[in-house]
């Protein structure tokens, strides 16, 4: 608690390898409280892997991540972190209502075996209002459109009232009206002083919110500075010229190996990429 505020999240010389292949190499990045940072780059540049490493879902092979100036492996104050993963394509086997999914975001603040408090219910209702889904809280999530499902995931992160948000491709496959709602929601968060780290292939309506852009290419930071326009990110000097606008064939499941290698393993083998 010194006079100078510590970085909300910082990674120093961070490296991540999947199946022995380096995906991130020597990343240095520090995000100050209140900043709105966009991680950009072509598909396969490592931007999603970086966010997953920052929240501890991908182990580092080198370097260190610090959340609020605490090393990641000692960090336990998860109520300050809000994580919005990429929208899962396959729903679970059992229907879940919008309210139930958003209520899961409150678990960072709930004790075991206690019923929901009044504050919990108010936070859940508030989060649903912010993303504009208050009137659909009883519906099954599976019945919503992709953009609405994305808003549900953001509301789930909001419900825990965190200070630091990580969003992984919140606009991928989302139609323009829904992107606008997302942008309005994020503008509200920014207004409240939240720190936002966002992975985006293209910013679209989010562009005016971004304070700082970080562009990755082949697992390295190639640009870190003022916000960029979408077309600038895909300039040849930042990325290969042929990698833009490939949203649909874009598979983010980085556990998958190369396409041409047959997958043969004995039943108890670890999947590739784990250690």
């Amino acid at each position, binding site marked *: 608690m010194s006079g100078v505020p510590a970085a909300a999240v910082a990674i120093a010389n961070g490296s991540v390898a999947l199946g022995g292949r380096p995906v991130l190499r020597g990343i240095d990045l520090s995000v100050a409280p209140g900043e709105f940072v966009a991680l950009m780059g072509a598909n396969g540049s490592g931007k999603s892997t970086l966010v997953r490493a920052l929240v501890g879902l991908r182990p580092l092979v080198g370097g260190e991540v610090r959340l609020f100036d605490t090393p990641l492996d000692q960090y336990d104050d998860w109520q300050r972190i809000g994580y919005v993963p990429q929208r899962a394509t396959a729903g679970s086997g059992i*229907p879940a209502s919008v309210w139930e999914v958003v*209520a*899961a975001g409150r678990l960072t603040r709930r004790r*075991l075996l206690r019923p929901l408090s009044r504050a919990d219910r108010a936070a859940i209702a508030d989060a649903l209002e912010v993303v504009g889904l208050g009137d659909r809280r009883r519906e099954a999530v599976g*019945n919503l459109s992709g953009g609405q499902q994305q808003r549900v995931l953001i509301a789930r992160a909001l419900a825990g009232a965190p200070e630091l948000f990580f969003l992984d491709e919140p606009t991928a496959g989302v139609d323009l009206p829904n992107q606008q709602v997302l942008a309005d929601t994020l503008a509200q968060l920014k207004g409240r002083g939240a720190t936002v780290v966002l992975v985006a292939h293209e910013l679209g309506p989010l562009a005016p919110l971004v304070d700082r852009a970080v562009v990755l290419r082949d697992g390295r930071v190639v640009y870190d500075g003022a916000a960029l326009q979408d077309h600038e990110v895909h300039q040849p000097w930042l990325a290969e010229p042929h990698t833009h606008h490939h949203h649909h064939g874009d598979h983010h499941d980085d556990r998958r190996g190369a396409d041409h290698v047959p997958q043969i393993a004995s*039943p108890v083998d670890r999947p590739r990429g784990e250690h």
Partner: protein
Amino acid sequence: MSPVELFSQPFMQRALIAALLTGLAAPAIGTFLVQRRLALMGDGIGHVAVTGVALGLVTGASPMWTAVLVAVLGSVLIEIIRERGQTNGDVALALLFYGGLAGGTFLSGIGGQSAASLNRYLFGSLTTLSPSDVLVTMVLAIAVVGLCLGLAPQLFAVAQDQEFARVAGLRVRVYNVLVAVLAAVSVTVAMRTVGLLLVSALMVVPVATSQQLTRSFRATLVAAMALGALASVGGLVTATFASYQVNVLTGPTIVLLALTCYVVAWPIGIWTRHRARLREPFASGQAAPAHEACGDHPHAHGPGCGHLAVPHDDHVDYVHDGHRHAVHGGHYDEH
């Protein structure tokens, strides 16, 4: 013996209590298994538990407790294989299942046990429960139901989105193992009711039935428990009455009754999902297609006209034989 006399017998009352509690406990944990797409895990644990039962029969220990022990060990092993193996986990599970079944029958053969004593556990025999069996069943079933309901928010979050749960600070591995252990306990609780070979049916079929009709997780869980209790008590009563005429086994009757519920719920589920799709409003801001007037329309749409009304931006569409009519001046447009 008249039905009233029969149901006042102590053995029959013990059977009713056991049926009710297993009917509540099995679908409670089954809901979480189905949510994690592990519907057949109960079946696998059931096969492994056969070895436990045989071990008890051969050594003279209580088959119930040896079954609990071996089933818990087996379920934790299955969970470890599932977590590490992922892609080829199903093969490893198959190895474990058949090993359990073969090991159980092999052991009971060595021990000189008759097929009938093992059969009691393979297909269930509610009416031969001793008072201590019922006590164990009650304690274990209440523990399973209590943990499933008490930890439902955590278990739901872990099963629904494992990575989010991890970032929310939940100890995902602990909850995964807990689900496996609870599944093993409820398998052994249910083995005297429906039998080890049919135990998975009581965990999965009521869940599959209730999810036809529900839109939320909590409603699915509660409805599955109600349906499970209905099927197992109803199956016991049905089998008791039927056995005045023919030889009817309780376990299969319970399972068939649960399946009948599913067969009834399935078309209703299809119909409600179809209706939900019709009712789905257009995405807001999406323009209606080009002006397309429909031909002569003898029927005037309005409130209570019998056609489903769907709000569409500033007006109302009426669903008419699978397409939508909107009032436009003196005629109807196709929307």
